[in-house]
């Protein structure tokens, strides 16, 4: 088990994420059908299949940042919709912040904070708007706290996954203010946001990859 993010862990994270998306795309699509347009699962499925192919083709000396950056640009060019540019930019910006062959927990948390910043800049959403931000923000905050408290990457990523999952669940009672769900007004209440759900899935994939 590793305590740093290296190329291998970055690859394992993306592969684990792709497998989880493949397993759960129908569930994500069903969530999106309820308050969006019913494509979130297929969007991410198409995207992560392309991501796995793209990062597999990278050189053996790629940095974790290169791997994540490649994943990001692949998502941007393959997914479309809202989630493609958002997740794509997040990973691209996070990747750009990880130039070294390995990154410790603090560096990872910083990079993901930068990625979250890219999502916020592009989409203009804040916590509570019922978007992926509602899972992303608490997950990054959990990583930062864990780094500050000296936790291991394993502990930190597990805490981040839990925080993301709690954040996703917490979108249920919210009324959406961004994205398609906002068109529904009060009718968006009572449904879990698909993007927040997939964000939780991505942080859970990180925790699993770290443990594996």
């Amino acid at each position, binding site marked *: 088990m590793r305590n740093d993010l290296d190329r291998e862990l970055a690859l394992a994270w993306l592969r684990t994420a792709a497998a989880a998306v493949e397993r759960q795309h129908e569930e994500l699509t069903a969530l999106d059908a309820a308050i969006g347009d019913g494509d979130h699962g297929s969007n991410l499925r198409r995207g992560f299949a392309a991501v796995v192919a793209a990062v597999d083709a990278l050189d053996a000396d790629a940095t974790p940042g290169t791997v994540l950056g490649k994943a990001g640009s692949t998502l941007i060019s393959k997914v479309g*919709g809202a989630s493609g*540019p958002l997740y794509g930019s997040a990973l691209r910006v996070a990747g750009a912040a990880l130039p070294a062959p390995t990154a410790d927990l603090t560096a990872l948390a910083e990079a993901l904070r930068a990625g979250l910043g890219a999502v916020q800049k592009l989409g203009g959403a804040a916590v509570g708007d019922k978007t992926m931000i509602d899972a992303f923000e608490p997950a990054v905050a959990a990583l930062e706290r864990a780094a500050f408290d000296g936790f291991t990457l394993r502990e930190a990523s597990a805490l981040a996954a839990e925080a993301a999952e709690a954040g996703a669940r917490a979108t249920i009672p919210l009324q959406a203010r961004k994205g398609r769900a906002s068109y529904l007004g009060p009718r968006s209440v009572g449904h879990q946001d698909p993007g927040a759900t997939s964000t939780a899935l991505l942080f859970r994939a990180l925790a699993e990859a770290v443990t594996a």
Partner: protein
Amino acid sequence: MKKLINTPESVLDDALAGIAAAHPELTVDRENRVIHRADAPRPGKVTLISGGGSGHEPLHGGFVGPGMLDAACPGEVFTSPVPDQLLAAVRATDGGAGVVFVVKNYTGDVMNFSLAAELAAEEGIEVRTVLVNDDVAVEDSTFTAGRRGTGATVVVEKVAGALAERGAKAAEVASVGERAVAASRSFAVALTAATVPAAGRPGFDLPEDEIEVGVGIHGEPGRRRAPLRPARELVAEVVDTILADHTLSAGDEVIALVNGLGATPLLELYIVYGEVAARLAERGLTIARNLVGNYVTSLDMAGFSLTLTKADPELLELWDAPVHTAALRRG
């Protein structure tokens, strides 16, 4: 799910194959998923490009041709196109006189088109964007992603396309597009839900005697559910909702688009049009031009949308200008 498809994954590629086979007058770049005029690039002509998720046919591919779009970029079903695809369209059609994007206001579309505009700028190509947001079912406030772009897109593409065809400058083309947006309002009613192929089941359940009022074109439910009523009453609500949000007064002329959402027979659309005409006449409004048919659809959704564009001599003249596309031809 009952659809004439091969697999949910191949819907777009298979449809592009059919469009390529059916329309030799168009170039279909199946690799990059771009449909463009075969005579592109046209040096000195402003390039008008649109795109959006598939499932709204004939929008946008059916409006590519002389007098309207230079290129269309279809995304996956209900998913905006990606920046690379839009950049490929820019490269294939740019005639050196500037590019105007027509973008329906959805978070995904806005982001992907703006990323593409950045990429084009890096190549020295200046892109202007006309954002279409005509759907009065959505409150235009900071509590939403803003009004959706729906039926008015056809009007915008028509008038901007006509002006571009005449050799106008990019700023003028974008500006007449924006004027058409500002002059247009739409509202839609659904009798049934749409089924996204990859989802495999309808986006929502609707009892036999209920409809969704204020739907968009992506299969999402509307603002509220209501009982099914006679066409006359439904149309009255739709017209009144639009007029309440429109700067129209007695004596004004409009372009009226009665648009089928995909599964509604033309017979019914004409019934709706008759009621629209009667209601508008009561309000002292004159329909100067009209379209009745399937123009901006939502897969297999039954229902209709109404778009009213306040007309003026310039818009009418551009509306009447010749156009030669798969879905709209005149002159």
